[in-house]
């Protein structure tokens, strides 16, 4: 179980880091989504693994239980990263439609020629 989770986090993170270093906005958005999956799995495992246990302390005997707090943290993180990805897609779409180009870098806005197009 440890091996599966650890390699899942590792593969997702490395894929995500590779993709956010790309030049086009679509791979970058996918990369951030992969990173957020990786961090969700990572957070989930931060409370130690307790397979097939309920997240409730049992008053009857010394039955072990799984830590409920990471589950709550993951739920918050999932909601936030889901919303953020939606915002990111909309901003990326807006930038693409405004400039007919989905490159993620800015070029050189500090030159005189581009200064004419600079926002006011």
């Amino acid at each position: 179980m440890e091996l599966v989770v650890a390699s899942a986090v590792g593969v997702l993170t490395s894929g995500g880091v590779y993709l956010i270093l790309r030049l086009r906005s679509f791979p970058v958005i996918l990369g951030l989504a992969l990173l957020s999956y990786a961090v969700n799995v990572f957070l989930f495992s931060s409370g130690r693994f307790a397979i097939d246990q309920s997240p409730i302390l049992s008053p009857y005997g010394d039955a072990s239980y799984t830590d409920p707090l990471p589950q709550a943290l993951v739920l918050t993180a999932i909601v936030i990263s889901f919303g953020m990805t939606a915002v990111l897609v909309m901003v990326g779409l807006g930038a693409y439609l405004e400039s007919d180009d989905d490159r993620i870098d800015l070029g050189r806005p500090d030159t005189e020629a581009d200064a004419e197009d600079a926002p006011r």
Partner: protein
Amino acid sequence: MNHWIIAPVVLPALLAPLIAFVMRHDISVARAASVAGTLALLAISIGLTVLAAGGETHLYRLGDWPAPFGIVLVLDRLSALMVLLTSTLATIVLIHAIATGWDARGRHFHALFQFQLMGICGAFLTGDIFNLFVFFEVLLIASYGLMIHSGGRERMRAGLQYVVMNLAGSTLFLFALGTLYASTGTLNIADLAVRVAAIPAEEAALVRVAAILLMIVFAVKAALFPVQFWLPATYSNAPAPVAALFAIMTKVGAYAILRINTIAFGPGIEGTEGLTGTWLFPAAIVTIAVGAFGVLGARRLMPLIAFSAVGSMGTLLVAVAIFSPEATTAALYYIVHSTFAAAALFLVADLVMSRRGGDALVAIPATAQNGLFAALFFAAAIGMAGMPPLSGFLGKLLVLDALRDPGQMAWAWSAVLIGSLLTIVGFARAGSTLFWKATAMPARDPATYSDIAPARPAEIVPAMAAVAALAALAVFAGPVSRYLEGTTAQLFDRTGYVTSVLGQDGED
């Protein structure tokens, strides 16, 4: 339990949806509600500052669950000071945005503005590190909307970069929190202080990893080298009033570094002592250099100011990195100063740019009220560069005075002093190109420029208020620094913080 402590979070949180859903079709109603809400926030934060001035740490337990099981808000002198700074800046920026009509150039400015205030105030007040993450996300998601307010090609592309950078930062924040929870089993800051202190040095490797990850996350927010590169592009392409409001956002990062590394990983804790400062100090020195060279090389006004903001964050973080009471007092003074200095520059730049029709640093014939804008720009630039008589000089003096350790003195003094010199040169060159050379050129044909009216008093007053805040900070430097010394003493009193949050049985 004083319920006013949560008011700076609840008030904007209730007002923002009301503005977005009920007042979306009438900008004047939205303006009135937004100004009233921000003024109420200012009044509340003054009240909280008076409450906290007694030196007691006030606790607000949400749902009355005892810490560390429930989420708590903590009001001490530092968080009260930061909330007061936020609401003062917000009032100035909001009046400027309304007077210049920026808020009507896109949709939902006021709703996003209030959500932004909610996130910032929450981040300053919270006593729980996961809650800090949530408030970071609230302030970031509002800032994404404000950053691309009114659109445009360059602004949308810079906005996309800004969002990507901060989403990567948020992911890193979650990794840090996961590591911290796995190694300590808590996310309450006071409880963290107890648990981390109990970990022996040889077993603290995971905690040290988490501490460094957290420092990187906050460094992204605070624009520290090598993760400062998003700031110039973002600030120079954001609407100028939004850039002025963003002056407080870098301070959220500095505040978080200060808070976490004094309470949880602070001096005297065996496992993590001196860890953050070791990395923070050289990075801050390089940040000063990046800011100074950027100011010198900028060919547009907005990047020039953005780079000077990077440089001021460098000076601030040099003082933060020492984690001694004197240096922290200097850092707190510099936080207040550099917030108003950056805001004043962005507001003046907005007035100048809207009359010149762009922010390129080239000489064009003088526009209306050239002398007035030159004077305002001069005053704000003096404040930012750190020359007397404004508070920048005193702030840098305090920072230099606190850095007397032989190992750090040579690096810090030369970086701050040479950086200041380069900043002065950059601002002098920009100011003379913008305002001085303009008077030597043939006057404009009044017929072609008749559409540009002289600035109304309401447009100039906010920029003047920001400059006046710098002057007041210099005049009342004595009382202010005495108050800040008390703030620092409270911040470094870890036992006091832990006892007030966890109760008398805080050792458990």
